[in-house]
């Protein structure tokens, strides 16, 4: 039984010659992401903003307008309603209440009284202001530390130019993903942070594989011009890059479509991240090496291992 070659072995796409195009696209992507945070802002979930989230299921299709009127008249401030997965399921988001933690609890009870006991309370989450602030900073800390730790690892395993190139590509992916969340108004919560960190892991994984090949080729072909060498490295690993992206996307698509509404946003973030991560490894991380003063002489120390 023989497999099919998805990407022909003779493939020779022009990545390096088109680098200006990629750089331009990425700068545009980052600028519009930053524009979106500033202009539109992120739709922070209760994890980071504090407040109340309830998922309810009614016996029959819910009249959202009526429920909005009922809950809107309770004086709880902003109440956002949204059908969730089906016409009988509604997600209710209530802003952080003035006052301390007990005020939040009172709001939950008020909503329950208003909706009555005929609805099924599938989920009730309440995050007090103290916790939401902690969760926010913990998230920032986790992302910051993860990026630093990865940078240090690459630095340790490769040369600093690789570390810097990888981290620029990685930062690009993280910012672009957050930008998409702002653009589409998707809820940014704790799971999103998990998704962002996984994207970071995936992106660096992808970059490391191509960099590994770059390093190997640098040792093998000492006189080949750098642009050509980099372009070859990308093409040689292209088949693997595409294969792994496809298998990962297959799994994530299945999760996005079948995994239920609770993790749909999470899967969406990952799908976007895998695509952008694959792009950035080949089209950003490698061309960047051209601009980072790669020292070819310094690579001679480690001998090419002998194959038994």
């Amino acid at each position, binding site marked *: *039984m*023989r*497999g099919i*070659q998805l990407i022909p*072995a003779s493939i020779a796409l022009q990545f390096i010659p088109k680098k200006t195009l990629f750089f331009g696209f990425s700068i545009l992507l980052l600028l519009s992401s930053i524009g979106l945070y500033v202009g539109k802002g992120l739709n922070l979930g209760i994890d980071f903003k504090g407040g109340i989230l309830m*998922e309810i299921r009614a016996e029959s299709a819910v009249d959202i307008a009526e429920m909005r009127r009922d809950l809107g008249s309770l004086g709880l401030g902003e109440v956002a309603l949204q059908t969730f997965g089906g016409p009988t399921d509604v997600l209710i988001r209530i802003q952080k209440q003035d006052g*301390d*933690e*007990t005020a939040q*609890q009172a709001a939950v009870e008020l909503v329950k009284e208003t909706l009555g006991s005929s609805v*099924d*309370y*599938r*989920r*009730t*989450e*309440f995050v*007090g202001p103290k*916790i939401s602030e902690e969760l926010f900073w*913990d*998230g920032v*800390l*986790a992302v910051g530390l*993860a990026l630093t730790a990865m940078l240090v*690892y*690459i630095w340790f*395993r490769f040369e600093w130019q690789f570390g810097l190139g990888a981290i620029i590509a990685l930062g690009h992916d993280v910012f672009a993903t957050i930008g998409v969340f702002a653009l589409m108004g998707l809820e940014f919560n*704790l*799971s999103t942070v*998990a998704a962002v*960190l*996984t994207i970071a*892991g*995936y992106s*660096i994984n992808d970059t*490391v*594989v191509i960099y*590994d*090949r770059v390093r*190997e080729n640098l040792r093998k072909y000492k006189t080949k011009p750098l642009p050509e060498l980099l372009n070859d490295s990308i093409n040689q690993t292209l*088949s*693997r890059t595409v294969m*792994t992206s496809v*298998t*990962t*996307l*297959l*799994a*994530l698509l*299945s*999760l996005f479509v*079948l*995994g*239920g509404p*609770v*993790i749909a946003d999470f899967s969406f973030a*990952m799908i976007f991240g895998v695509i952008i991560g694959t792009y950035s490894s080949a089209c950003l991380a490698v061309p960047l090496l051209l601009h980072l003063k790669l020292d070819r002489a310094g690579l001679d120390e480690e001998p090419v*291992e002998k*194959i*038994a």
Partner: protein
Amino acid sequence: MIYFARWKILTIISLCLLGLAFAAPNFVDRHTAENLPDWLPHKQVSLGLDLQGGSHLLLEVQSDAVIQEHLEAIVDTVRSELRKQRIRYRALGINGGLNGDGSVSVGVAITNLEDHETAYELLRNLEPGTDTEIDESGQLTIELLDQTVQDRRISAIQQSIEIVRRRIDETGVREPTIQRQGDDRILVQLPGVDDPERIKDLLGQTAKMSFHLVDTENSVDDAVAGRVPPGSKLMYSADEVLPSGEPFPYLIKKRVMVSGETLVDAQPSQDGRTGEPVVTFRFDTRGAKKFGDATSKNIGRPFAIVLDGRVISAPVIRDAILGGFGQISGTFSFQSAQDLALLLRAGALPAPLVILEERTVGPGLGADSVAAGKIASIVGLLAVIIFMAATYGLFGLMANVALIMNMFLILAALSALQATLTLPGIAGIVLTIGMAVDANVLVFERIREEVRVGRTAMSAVDAGYSRALKTIIDANVTTLIAAILLYTFGSGPVRGFAVTLAIGIVTSMFTAIMLVRLLAVSWLRSRKPDQLPL
């Protein structure tokens, strides 16, 4: 890379078999799993509250209240000591006033110069764990040492955890988890509880009970108007109201007749005459004696039963109550009588608790999530399997064997470590399905390249593995770093994701580097093909 020592082969096979054995209990129902023979693994994956349904509460102990109380007690002692010695003073109180920001000292100004030394000597050793100072103007400060404050806070949280545990145990919730978190927090997890209102109510009361005599010599109206006589305090009823709708006021003696700490039992019951719900209680010997003495001296006078600063009942003492038994009748419902009895049995919290975070998932949503997660995993798995087989042929099939083995190993690791599987954890597993084949893809692509440069089948496989190995390790370590940091700094469900992701990375590296290689090499040795089916 293509020679396997016999012990290596045995290790790989036994690890896989162990994996299957530990994963197996998850494929039978819970009851069967628990009754498996002792020598077989019988632990199932433990589902997080978001999958099995349940309630997660994060509570904070308001330990400032304990410090405040301690300072108030010092103020009382200082007052009575100074009076005893007839030392004139003014401005006695907690520095910074009540609810002052984190104040830990008591201040008093000694009026007469000649009393300064006496007062200082008198108060210096009054309370252990304090530091007393006096300045030239006679301003005396008693400050709690940092260590004392710390000790009080720690003991408040330890005591709170104990009381929370007792209260929850009394409600009959099965397998609750109650853990300390950080300096002043308690994490409570209640599997299967989808409406935690009652438990929140129970935890929301400190349930400090005490018995006081009612001050009948002074006027309640004067006290309401602001003239509270010393030694008494104004308190309001928990349920009775005045015609105006205001709560009914009582003037009661500050001195505690008997404290609730001496209660040994409390039960809901019905009043013999009226049939109304009441709470009966029993004192320990010390409490019974105090209660007996107090009641026999005060026949005909009312006393107040105070719970958390409110009067729940103020009956008149008809006879001396000597048996140590008593009954509280208020306007109870059957439920509230039961709850009060429960609170009294479990004991009082040293400080109020505040709910910082609540996450409750009903059983319906949990079951839906498990079902959706299962379907998504299976469909994702099938899609990847088909894709791998189509792309890599026979080698793809080997990778698929490893992929399925990988799923069993993840299940086995989750069961054996008793790590909690959450919904994001399922997402982590699905993601692992996609990424687990990456190591194989790296190797297979490398083998294809080696074949293209003219190596023989055997040598291409060998080169493929040895050259891809470093890349595989580099690539996976970075993802592992992300997973470990997620676990360290993440909370709740996110940690569940980190756990499955980390386990998935380790098992997928094992299956790709060891299992698939073993399969490939065995096949090559038995067939000795000239060309690879890649």
